[in-house]
């Protein structure tokens, strides 16, 4: 028996191995409860989470995501979802969220419960799950925590939630969806994941930001 660096059991024959997957983010906290899902080790809860009112930073990098592009995107229904008419608009359809990025492009996120759909065969789709780090800011105090990370106006009262913002957080270009005053989800290039998350926790600690498990996100998203 050989063990992988993360302690995953590896047998000697390739056929028997667990094809484990790694998130770009590893929080400096102890998870009492994890779940193995499609190769990802998903943290459901962190130690001491129940005694903390929030805000939490939740790693959702394992959630599946797609990029869909088409010149005539308004006429398309990728994954049977209506494409939001306005650029910057966000549609929530059950477990799926569709963000209108620009004239020709949408991003689709699987954020709800249940199994994610598989990638449709149309040319316009590219699965981008592995290209991003996805983080959620959950709980009371999210706006204050984010004030330490970005100059973007993520809580403009003039905009109806949910809405999309594309811009820099910690100087890294991000796609950010504001679902509510206590729920913001963002994606950015996977390579930044580790240092971004650490910086976010460091600056956000002033407002009580701590690592949270997927459960806290699921409660907020529901």
């Amino acid at each position, binding site marked *: 028996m050989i063990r992988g660096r993360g302690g995953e059991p590896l047998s000697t024959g390739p056929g028997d191995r667990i094809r484990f997957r790694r998130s770009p983010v590893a929080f400096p906290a102890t998870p009492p409860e994890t779940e193995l899902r499609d190769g990802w080790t998903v943290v459901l809860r962190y130690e001491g989470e129940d005694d903390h009112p929030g805000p939490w930073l939740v790693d959702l990098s394992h959630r599946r995501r797609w990029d869909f592009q088409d010149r005539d995107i308004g006429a398309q229904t990728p994954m049977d979802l209506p494409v939001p008419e306005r*650029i*910057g608009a966000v549609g929530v359809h059950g477990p799926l969220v569709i963000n209108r*990025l*620009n004239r020709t492009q949408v991003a689709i996120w699987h954020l709800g419960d249940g199994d994610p759909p598989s990638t449709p065969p149309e040319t316009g789709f590219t699965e981008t799950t592995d290209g991003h780090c996805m983080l959620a800011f959950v709980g009371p105090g999210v706006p204050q925590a984010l004030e330490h990370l970005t*100059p973007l106006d993520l809580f403009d009262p003039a905009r109806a939630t949910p809405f999309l*913002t*594309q*811009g*820099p957080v910690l*100087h890294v*270009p991000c796609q950010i969806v504001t679902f509510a005053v206590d729920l913001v989800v963002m994606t950015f290039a996977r390579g930044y994941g580790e240092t971004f998350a650490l910086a976010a926790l460091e600056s956000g600690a002033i407002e009580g930001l701590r690592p949270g498990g997927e459960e806290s996100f699921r409660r907020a998203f529901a």
Partner: protein
Amino acid sequence: MTFRLTCPVCGKRDVYEFTFGGQDRGPRPAQEGLSAEEHFRWVQFRMIPGGWEGGEGGGVREGDRAAPQEEWWYHGQGCGVWFRTTRDPGTNREVEGGGGG
């Protein structure tokens, strides 16, 4: 001075989110029969009428005010779209209604 640009996708954003793409000079010229000098002029040579307004310590100056110019910008820190806008090099401000081309 810090200013903002109007991205056609994201709206007004701080100029430091963008990459400057130069004056709008129209599509690249046909390469058939293009002389070397014409090409290198097209790439590098620009006319930037100038002057400055209300210079430090001066009042408003009449005369040669800079002409607003059409230019290209790329929203690299945001949506990743190239767009045209009109900006006045004399004030370093986007001209009203310049955004979104």
